[in-house]
Each structure stands twice: as structure tokens, then as C-alpha cells.
């Protein structure tokens, strides 16, 4: 029987029937998730981890697809951004940068990739989701959302087209309103706890902050 809950449905498909096959048959048994404790450390199920690994391997060149290498090697930002799940997302670059652990923040290892999927999974807690959302929206990585971050965020949300852009005065008005609502300590920026305070009251955040492979 399917899980009797409206929200249940968003785990990704089981690994075996999950669609695309990688070029070489991967020795799935060797990526026993329990060996790497990925299941303890992420919100993903075994099937999702296996599927994630397969999708990750598809991004690798043919000769690096062996088990050991696929866990060590890093995939460049452009390749990750070409994933159909991220393609249409206006925050795709920010997402990748936030989850990247390389010094230049421009590539993802498999572990980073799993971190990403875990945070965006259905079962992740709202706290961790809002934490990473804050880091994604914090475009200059300075730990607070200031006016520049907010205007960049608005630009991301309204798309690249000229017709959907907000005018300067509209933008100012909008950001003023947002700061009026959310900036509790009135320092002109929104910090993490203020952000989480707002987000925790949102009914839609947890259901829309999701990416499923």
C-alpha cells in the first residue's frame, strides 16, 4: 500500500528502476551506502543515494567512472548546472557554490552532491533547509542579507527578461517593505536568526524547497 500521506510522495524513484543507465554497469554492491554511513549523515534513502551516484557518474568522463575514482573526483560547476533538475533554477549557481567544498567553490565532489540532495530532500528538517536557503540567498557570503543581496535575489526571482524586471523605485519600495517586516533588530540587514524566524512561519517553504533527482 502506498504511504497514506499527501506529503509522502517525493522521494525519488528506486535505484533499480530509476531510469537512465550509466555507460558501464556500475558495481552497485560496492557502493553499499552503509559502508560510508551516507544514510546516517543524509536524509536520503539507500535507493536515492544509489540513484544520486549513478547520476553523478553520468557527469564524469568515461574513464573516471570506477567506484573509487567517482568518490574522489570533482565535477565542474558547468556540468552540474546542466542537470535538468537545476537547469531552470535561477539560484543554480548559488546552490552549487554553497555546497562546494573546493577552495575556489567551483566544483562538487560526490559528497557535496549528496549534501545538496539531502538538504533539498523531502525529509530534511525545516531548520536545515532554512539554514541553507539563507546561505544561498547570501550572495556575497558575508553572513547577512543586506540590500545588495536582496536586490540580487529579486532579480533572480523576476527572471532575465526586460519586461519582468522591476523598476528602481519598485525595487527600493519592495526591499524597504521586506526590511520593515523581517529586520527585527533594525540594523539594515537580515541575519540568520531573523531569516529563520520568518521562514519558520511560512506554510509553503518546506514543500517548495525541494529538488528530487
Amino acid at each position, binding site marked *: 500500500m*502506498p504511504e497514506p500521506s499527501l506529503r509522502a*510522495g517525493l522521494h525519488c524513484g528506486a535505484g533499480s528502476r530509476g531510469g537512465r543507465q550509466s555507460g558501464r554497469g556500475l558495481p552497485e554492491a560496492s557502493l553499499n551506502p552503509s559502508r560510508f554511513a551516507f544514510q546516517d549523515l543524509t536524509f536520503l534513502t539507500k535507493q536515492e543515494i544509489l540513484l544520486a551516484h549513478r547520476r553523478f557518474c553520468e557527469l564524469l568522463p568515461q574513464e573516471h567512472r570506477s567506484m573509487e575514482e567517482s568518490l574522489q573526483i570533482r565535477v565542474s560547476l558547468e556540468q552540474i548546472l546542466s542537470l535538468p533538475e537545476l537547469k531552470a533554477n535561477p539560484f543554480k549557481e548559488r546552490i552549487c557554490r554553497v555546497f562546494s567544498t573546493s577552495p575556489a567553490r567551483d566544483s562538487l565532489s560526490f559528497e557535496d552532491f549528496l549534501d545538496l540532495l539531502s538538504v533539498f530532500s523531502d525529509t530534511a528538517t525545516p531548520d536545515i533547509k532554512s539554514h*541553507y536557503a539563507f546561505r544561498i540567498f547570501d550572495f556575497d557570503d*558575508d*553572513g547577512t542579507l543586506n540590500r545588495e543581496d536582496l536586490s540580487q535575489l529579486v532579480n533572480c526571482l523576476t527572471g532575465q527578461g526586460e519586461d519582468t524586471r522591476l523598476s528602481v523605485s519598485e525595487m527600493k519600495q519592495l526591499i524597504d517593505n*521586506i526590511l520593515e517586516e523581517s529586520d527585527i533588530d533594525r540594523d539594515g540587514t537580515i*541575519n540568520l536568526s531573523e531569516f529563520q524566524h520568518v521562514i519558520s512561519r511560512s506554510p509553503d517553504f518546506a514543500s*517548495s524547497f525541494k529538488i528530487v533527482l
Partner: protein
Amino acid sequence: TGDRSGRRPSKKRALRAEGAAGRRGAQPGQKERVRGSPGPGSPRRKQAERRRHREELGERGRSSAERTCSERRKDRRTSFKEQRAPSKKEKEVPRKEETWKRLKKHRSPSLASSASRRESLSEEELARILEQVEDKKKLIATMRNKPWPMAKKLTELREAQEFVEKYEGALGKGKGKRLYAYRMLMAKKWVKFKRDFDNFKTQCIPWEMKIKDIESHFGSSVASYFIFLRWMYGVNLVLFGLIFGLVIIPEGYIKYSALFYGYYNNQRTIGWLRYRLPMAYFMVGVSVFGYSLMIVIRSMASNTQGSASEGESTNFTFSFKMFTSWDYLIGNSETADNKYASITTSFKESIVDEQESNKEENIHLTRFLRVLANFLIICCLCGSGYLIYFVVKRSQEFSKMQNVSWYERNEVEIVMSLLGMFCPPLFETIAALENYHPRIGLKWQLGRIFALFLGNLYTFLLALMDDVHLKLSNEEKIKNITHWTLVNYYNSSGWNESVPRPPLHPADVPRGSCWETAVGIEFMRLTVSDMLVTYITILLGDFLRACFVRFMNYCWCWDLEAGFPSYAEFDISGNVLGLIFNQGMIWMGSFYAPGLVGINVLRLLTSMYFQCWAVMSSNVPHERVFKASRSNNFYMGLLLLVLFLSLLPVAYTIMSLPPSFDCGPFSGKNRMYDVIQETIENDFPTFLGKIFAFLANPGLIIPAILLMFLAIYYLNSVSKSLSRANAQLRKKIQALREVEKSHKSVKGRTTARDSEDTAKGNSKNATQLQLNKEGTTPHSAGQSQTTDPKAQAPGLSSSAIMVTLPASRHLPVSRPPGARPDSGHARPQTHPWRSASGKSAPSPPH
């Protein structure tokens, strides 16, 4: 988060403790270190990371030293290797590692001695270790909630696991020790089993890929319909299993008539198991409703748990639009474009709303139009109700006549389906008069369609009930005739009295009309015709339209895709309501036609595939994207209402209509529920019967009901007082916020004055002061304005509020930043520093 301020001392303590040797000192340090988490993205984070890394290395070195003298050796090597693997990536390590190796060397002997002393652990040490082990376990369980990169989580996990493994065995003494170890082992196995079971469960959820496809094309709102459909399928599958397993199978092989009530007979028991079918039939009928109620309420409750307080959400309209409006599931550029457009409109709308919130051009015209629209819609509803009543009456005429045509036989169902098909668009047209905001308009539309469906269903039921009463009065006559026929048959002369007569063939006896089966047949017809109409609507309205638009676009005067017909949007609300009412019919009908649930399972299965295909092939994403999360509970609420409404007629017939005398499992009884009494009297021991009789006593039932009312009243008042407390806490938070603001402004004023004074002499000094003030205030603010109201309540005394009030009273005088020359002087000084500090200097921790 004040963890980093506590960081340095804790580390020092750990070091000192290590120097002093012994596990005893090392653990508190370890514990503290684990608790802390670095702030996100702050420039200091890297330093903290590096420092932590050093500590980890020390930890690792220490643990490897300890390992040499510990008894447990299994899978240590592999874990150690894995532990080190991620750290290799960061190339800053080796030098520090050496220094730590040195440290490790002179530390290891003492560790060894401490390990050898383990047997002589005192009570309090044991208690402390137990506490630490519990802490570590908690850490292991919640590791995934930490916003750390994977490599860090891995090392932390390894350490915690090693610690737990090492000291778990040391806990407990003698027999208790083994029991403890055994319990731990079982707990581990249980965790593993649970995880495997969860994996298995998620694997069993069907149609994941289909729904995911739809999600990425249409966003989460359209997908929510399909998730609802799937949930419905699951519920129906359970109901079907219940009915199939307990009623249909025991009765024997399945044939067409097994779908209906009249097929089952009233033999008290069947076969060698003495299966009590009438009782089972009754109980299954009851438990269908019971299970449905339970599952709907449970999922409603689990939905509401997630959403936080409703009242406050109005305060954050802009922030919600900003931070939560993007749907990350969207993976299709067309949908993304729609989303961009809708977000932009909503931004602009809300800005305009904010600017001129109460501007109404011609209020009288709008009012008039709205009244007119409602009047028209009420006329439509009444008309459709009367039409159905009329048609059902007419069908009773037809049923008396011979050789009626196909149309005349199925007129009721056809009319009802047509009404369901054409009324909603009509309502939408009328609603255009009203000029509501689209969101409010949608609510009205939903309410009207709901009223239409409900009205239709209930008119249908009333007309059907009339029919049943007619049949019941006829039944009396037929019963008499049957009785006399049988009496005549058995008493007729010329038959040998010693030989028992063969029973009369049923076809030779006049039979009653069996109203239960008639009702079941009506519901079956209704369901099937509803299904067909839905599918035909999809085919004609969506698919053919899409084909027409797609292929005729090449040779048409205007652009079909952008112009008039265009492609259809997926009508979420209409489809959900259709599904809910279909389910209502199933619930109502399932008592009279047990096979109905089976039909419904098939229907849901086919519509899952059919609608998935139709959506993907011929619909376009919504122009306005609705929020999905709110609607989940909305759907569930509607479902609950419909369930309750469909429970009423069934309960009525069970409790107050006599069953037909010659068909069905309850034939020959006065009322259907008599079967319970019969079973109790005949099959249970007498004292149970007495207990039941006692329980059914009104003297007991009325107090029970009263008690229930009291409980409801009590819970209600508790929830009211809680919400009042909630409001009060919110007020306190706001007051606190005022305090912060006034503090700030007062401080700002004083510093501004100071700076004004000193500016004449030494401007550098002033900036210095300013920096200090600015550096401290955000920190304290960040500390005190945590989101948890409970944490603040005790800290905030009434005197604090008292203090603030005067402060905030003269606050407006001082506050406007640009107005006063002195504060205007102070501001520009802070800003360059702020923007510069973001990059270079470590910013104050947030």
C-alpha cells in the same frame, strides 16, 4: 549563536586536560567541541574550521593511541582509513599533524594506564561516561541535521561511534553488563531493520517517476493533485481488501451479482468455519467508515503539525513572496518563465496594494454586480436540484413500464454528469461579473462547485429515499402474497404427509423488490457514468483541443496557441472536487454494493495513467501558480466533510429502515443492526451479553455523551488559553523589540553627541567609539531576539517593559536618522565601515 565565543576556552580546556592526561579530562573538551557549529559563510568560519581540524587531528591521534590498548579491534582499520580519506583533500594538514604526533607521543603512556584502570571505575565516573555516551548517541542520531559539509560530518560520526563503541561495554557491572550489551545490540539491529524497512516502504510507493515528471513541468501544485489521487488509491485499496477478504471471498466464487447486496443470503454461518456472514457484512460496512474517518483525520493532523501559527503569517507578506515563492522542483524552462512572470506580478501587485490599499472606484456597482452574480448562481443551483429531482421521479415512472429505451433507463446519471460538466464553467463566467481578486475568486468558485455537487447528490438521495419508501410499502403486500403462496403450496391436498415436500423454486414465488440492491445499482451506474464523462471530457476538452490548436495553427487566421482556444490548463480544484465527490459516492454506495470499491480501485488506477498522460500531452502550466501546501489540508477538510455527509444517509438506512424480507444478509430481521444483538445472544457467553445490554443502557450512554461534551469543552478552553498565552508572548517579543530599538536609538544619540563633541578635537576617536558601539549592539540584539518565545519569557520581567515605555516615548524625537544633523553625521561613518568590514575584518558573530 554564541558557540564560537565559547570555542576558544573549550579548546584550551581540552588541551590542558590532555596535558594532565587521562580520559577524564579529555571528554568534556570533546563534548564541548562537538556541540559547537560554525556560523555560515562568515569569514571567521575558515579559521574556526582550521582550528577544529587541528583538534580533530589531535582527537584522531589520541583515539589511535587509545586503540592500541583497547580490546576491540574489529573494523577499526577501515574506519580509520575512511576517516582520513576526506581530510587528504585539504592540503593544509601535514605540518600540523607532525606537531600533534609529538604531542600524542608523550600522552599515550598515561592513556594506556588509564585504560588499564578501567575496571576500577567509580560510580560517578560511570554515570558521567553513561551521560557522555548518551550525548554521543544523540549526536549520531542528529548528525544529519547539522549544516556541515559531508567530510566533517563523517569524521565527527566516526569519532562519536568509536567513543560509543569503546565505552559502551564498560558500562554496567556483572550481569547488568551483559544485559546492557545485549540491549545495545538489539537497539542497533532495530535501527538497521527500521531503516531497511523504510527503504523498502519508499520503494513500494508507486508512480514516483510519473509524479516527479509532472512536478518538474507543472510545479508542485498540479503534482499535489496526483499525490492526492495516489493517496486515495491507497485508501481504496485497503477498503477493497477489507470487503473482498471478509465478505466476497467467504461467500464463494465471484460473479456479477456479488457486487450487490441482494446476492448475499442470510444464513447465519457458512461452511465448516461457521463464518458469520451477516455479522461480517455489517461489521465491514461499519469499519469501512471507521477506517476512512481515522485515516483522513490522521493525515489532517499530521499536515497541521507542520504548519506553524496561522495568525502571524499575515505580517510577512513581502518576505514570504521574496524568500519562499520559488518552487525548486520546477525543471522546465517554460514553467520557470511562467513562474517568473507570476512572481513579478505578485510583487507589483503587493507594492500597489501597499500604496493604495483602500481604493474603491465604484462600490455600488461592484456590490450590485456581486449580488446579481450570487442570485444567478443560486438560481442555477436550485434549477439543477429541481432538474435532478424531476428526472429521478420520471425514472420511477419508467421503471414501472416495460421496454424503455437505453436513454430513459440511464437518464438520471446522464443528467447528473452533464450538470457536473457544464455548471462549473457557467459559474466561472458568472463570477467574472464579481471582479474579485483571483485568490478570493477561486475560493468562491470552489465553494460554489462544492455546493452544486453536494446539492445534486443530496437531491438524488432524497428522490431515491422516496423510491425506497414506495418499495417498502409495496413490499408488505408482496410479503403477504409470498406467505400465502408458500402456505398454500405446503398445505395443498394430495400429498403424502410423511415425505417432506421439496422446497419451492424461488422463481415460482413472488419476490420483493429488494430496495438495497436497487440503491446499489443506482450508485454503481452513477459511478460508472461519472467515470466515463470524466474521461470523455478529458479526451474532448483537453486532447482534441490540443490537437486542434497544434495542427490547425499552420493554416489559421490568428495564432491559435496564443489566442482564443489555446491549450487547456489543468483544472486542479475541479479535479480534486470531482475526486472527492466520487469518493463520497463510493462511501455511500459501498454498503449496498460491496463491489463498488473494487470498481473504484480500477477507476483510480486508470485515471492515474490516463490523466498523467493527458496532462503531459495536452495541458500547459498555469499562468497563475497556486500554492500547494495550504491546499493539502483543504482537500482533506473537504474529504472529511463529504465523508461525514455520506455517513448520514447510510446510518439512517441502517438504523431506521427495515431490510427487505427476502434478500440480503439481513433478511427477516426488523432492523439491520439486530444482527449484532443476535450474534451476542447466540454466539457469546451470556455474561458478555449482559455486559453489552448494560452498556447499551441509556442511563450509561447519556452520561458518556455528557462526559464527551465536557471533555470537548475543557480542551477547547485549554486551547483558547494557550492561544491567549501565545498572543501575550508575541506581545512581549514586540515589546522587547521596542526595547532594542530604543536602546539602539538612545545609544546612537549618545554616540552621535559624543562624536559631535570630540569631532572638534579628534574625529578619529569618535569613529573608534562608534565602532565599539556598533560592534556590540548587533551582538546583544542577536542574542536576545531568538525566535523561541519561551526562551525569552522568563528573562523578560515586567520592569523591563516599564523601563522601555518612557524610552520609546521620547524615541520618535531622537529616531529619524536623516532629520537631525548630528545623527546624520553619525550614519555615514558607520556605513563605510560596515561594507568594508564585510570583506576584511571579522564581522560580529550572528
